[in-house]
């Protein structure tokens, strides 16, 4: 889990930065800028939580009716959130959507036909939430089977700006989670995970799975298992990222020392002198 809320993505242009740090963030005229920026995020494969939150809030504040742009942007933002399911981005986005999005749509009986787009929108959001629940509860096999077998899910994901990168993003994240769960820093023990299990987590066929594992340093297929070396490196290749992850499972004994100021003891010393 990274604290994405305080870090500013390096890709954020200065005009977006201006908007976010001034009252312009409440100006409906910047909706277009933020929507364009969202596209850039999807194309360049990064996500700027604060910018997207500002966009969602503006939609709500402007009380604009649910138009196509708004629907498209919202879905893309939520997909970006899924691609970061390791953080709580997705939840923060949900909090800023219209209040009815997660309601049981079947209960809306009196809605006129023009509101059918609202029902449609609710069902999209509910579907994305369903995917998020599967990812965060580590039901990866189920996640892929739902995504790959249900047409409505397919349309949702593969008609978005993220169509090309979605699978590989999620796959890498899942791999990250597995790595965190299975690696340890004890050089005596080599962790392993059943190939079959990992393969189904990642939803890859035999050949692609082999390639995928090969591309990861310090991971090796050994018979029907994948070995995970104790100082294995992460899929992301920037050093900082590796450092952080390697250390999390480290079992360091902590030597705690306490500093006691002399003043704190003054009363005790005074008392004992008086005796």
């Amino acid at each position, binding site marked *: 889990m990274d*604290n994405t809320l305080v870090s500013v993505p390096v890709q954020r242009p200065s005009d977006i930065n201006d908007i976010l740090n001034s009252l312009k963030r409440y100006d409906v005229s910047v909706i277009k800028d933020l929507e364009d920026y969202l596209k850039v995020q999807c194309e360049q494969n990064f996500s700027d939580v604060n910018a997207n939150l500002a966009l969602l809030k503006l939609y709500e*504040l402007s*009380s604009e009716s649910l138009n196509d742009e708004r629907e498209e942007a919202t879905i893309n933002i939520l997909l970006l959130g899924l691609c970061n399911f390791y953080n*709580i981005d997705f*939840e923060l986005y949900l909090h800023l959507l219209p209040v*009815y999005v997660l309601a049981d749509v079947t209960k809306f009986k009196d809605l006129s036909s023009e509101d059918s787009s609202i029902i449609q929108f609710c069902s999209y959001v509910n579907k994305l939430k369903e995917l998020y629940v599967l990812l965060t509860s580590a039901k990866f096999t189920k996640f892929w089977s739902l995504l790959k077998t249900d047409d409505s899910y397919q349309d949702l994901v593969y008609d978005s700006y993220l169509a090309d990168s979605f699978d590989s993003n999620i796959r890498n994240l899942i791999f990250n*989670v597995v790595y965190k769960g299975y690696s340890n820093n004890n050089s005596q023990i080599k962790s392993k995970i059943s190939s079959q299990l990992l393969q189904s987590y990642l939803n890859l066929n035999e050949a692609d799975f082999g390639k995928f594992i090969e591309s990861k340093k310090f991971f090796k297929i050994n018979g029907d*298992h994948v070995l995970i070396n104790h100082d294995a490196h992460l899929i992301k290749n920037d050093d900082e990222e590796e450092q952080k992850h390697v250390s999390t499972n480290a079992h360091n004994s*902590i030597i*705690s020392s306490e500093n006691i100021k002399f003043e704190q003891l003054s009363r005790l010393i005074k008392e004992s002198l008086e005796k």
Partner: protein
Amino acid sequence: MTDVIKPSGDIGSASSVQQAIPDQVKDFIRTFYKHFLENNVYELHGCYENTFNKLTDKYYTKSAWPDPLTEVAPLVDNDQIFLVLYSEVYYRHIYAKLGPTLEHRTNSYNNYCNLFNLILNHEGGPVTFELPAKWLWDIVDEFIYQFNQFSVFRSKLINKKNLSEQDSAELSFLQQHVEIWSSYSVLNALYSLIGRSKIYEQLTAQRNNLPPSKISEIAGPYGSLTLYKNLGYFSIIGLLRIHTLLGDFTLALKTMEEIELSKKSNFLTRVPGAHFTTYYYAGFCYLMMHRYADAIKTFSHILLYITRIKNISKSGQYDAITKKSEQMYALLTILIGLCPTRIDDVLHNNLKEKFSEQLSKIVKGGEASLKTIEELFAFGSPKFISISLPSFDSPELNIDAIHLHSSVFMVTVKNTVYNNLLKTYLNLYSSMELQKLLNFLESDDTKINNLDELKEVLLAFKLTNTQIKWTETAAVKTATNGEDEEQLPGATSGLLNGESSNVYDFDITINDNLIQIIEMKVARKFSDWFIRNTSKNYFVQDAIRNDRIEETGKEKKDKKTKKSKK
């Protein structure tokens, strides 16, 4: 707004016109006005805080105070500024005691607009009058409260099934005047107050220890005046509250960037209402962001403070505080259940007194715990507001915002449903076969059927076992920090800062069909406990000696010698 519809059966003006104003009240209004003209903040505070409430109890428990325009204006030379201020109190009293009509709500809104316009865009520079800090806080507080109330009132009216004639008239009025109490205007007012007072710049300058002359230079002609400075400061807290109510927890904490939560000489402590509000909403935001440790720290701090001042605070404010602290205990129960943490004994006892049943349910885990958490959440959360306008055409879409926020919050919480149960087993081992764990869990009636599912549960545990936690290293250290004092979140820099850390005091790694458990218990600090209890011991000894009963001293001495060895 002149075309306000006149609801029939008005409680306010109709009844009060009939009776003449009692002389005592007349005198009071005149004195109130006199002190206002003299800019005597001390006396104003007395009038506002004491006399007003006393007279309310005596004459106005069931009716409104004299009408500002028809009755009070002649008494105060028709002074427009004073009348705006008086109206603020007048409407607040109606809200508190009588239940406002749509007309009251609209007029009160307009009065706030006038008040803020007066303060922000006064001809010829800043206004010259001065108001007590308590009153200024109440203005900001009430402004948001009425905004909140208005959205409740409106959605109730829209969702009403059988509309009376008056209802439909009010409804169409609301539809035509969506600008009344709109989120935009409320945010605008608060941001303008902050901007005028340059409060952020002032606080940054203060943090950088700039000399006072430099700070007042930065503050400018408005911000250097107490009235503007206080209003700006309170508006920041107001924003924290509004953003939370609207569901934007990130921005809520971000607005608090420059306010230091734990400073002892904090300005906040002087206005209790502001103090509690800040901690409640900051803690709530942490909860919503699943930063449990930070939320626990924030709530504990303020709840301890409340228990300490309980006996000295005035009864008037006490009701509101009791309600808020009950809510915080409810949230704290959720937090302790999700993130087992040692809290102060006093708090622990209070919590047990109020919510022990709920706590044990949550700790037990399983599906039953989820319902308990939802109930506590509903009790402890503030009254959320939907940011957008309600839909007038399809009332069905106007669902109470709490349903959205609660179900989103529960998404992650549902993944923790087995965590406490897992904890009880995993705490006993340093490594174990998964099959064995599965057998244990099966006997507990969980829905985990095979090893693959167990592995999923364990990975999910791994995912929920991380949280962002405010740390000193993440923040910029300042030289004035006491090393031994436990730092509250945001003690030295923004509340959003933090690093990844574990929720539980252990972690797991899986290795095929084996699980390893790593203990990460943080050693407790003993020195403080030791010193405190030795002092307590001395204190008891003194008391005993004063009573000339010296027999029991022996036992204490043993304790002392043990400690002196350390």
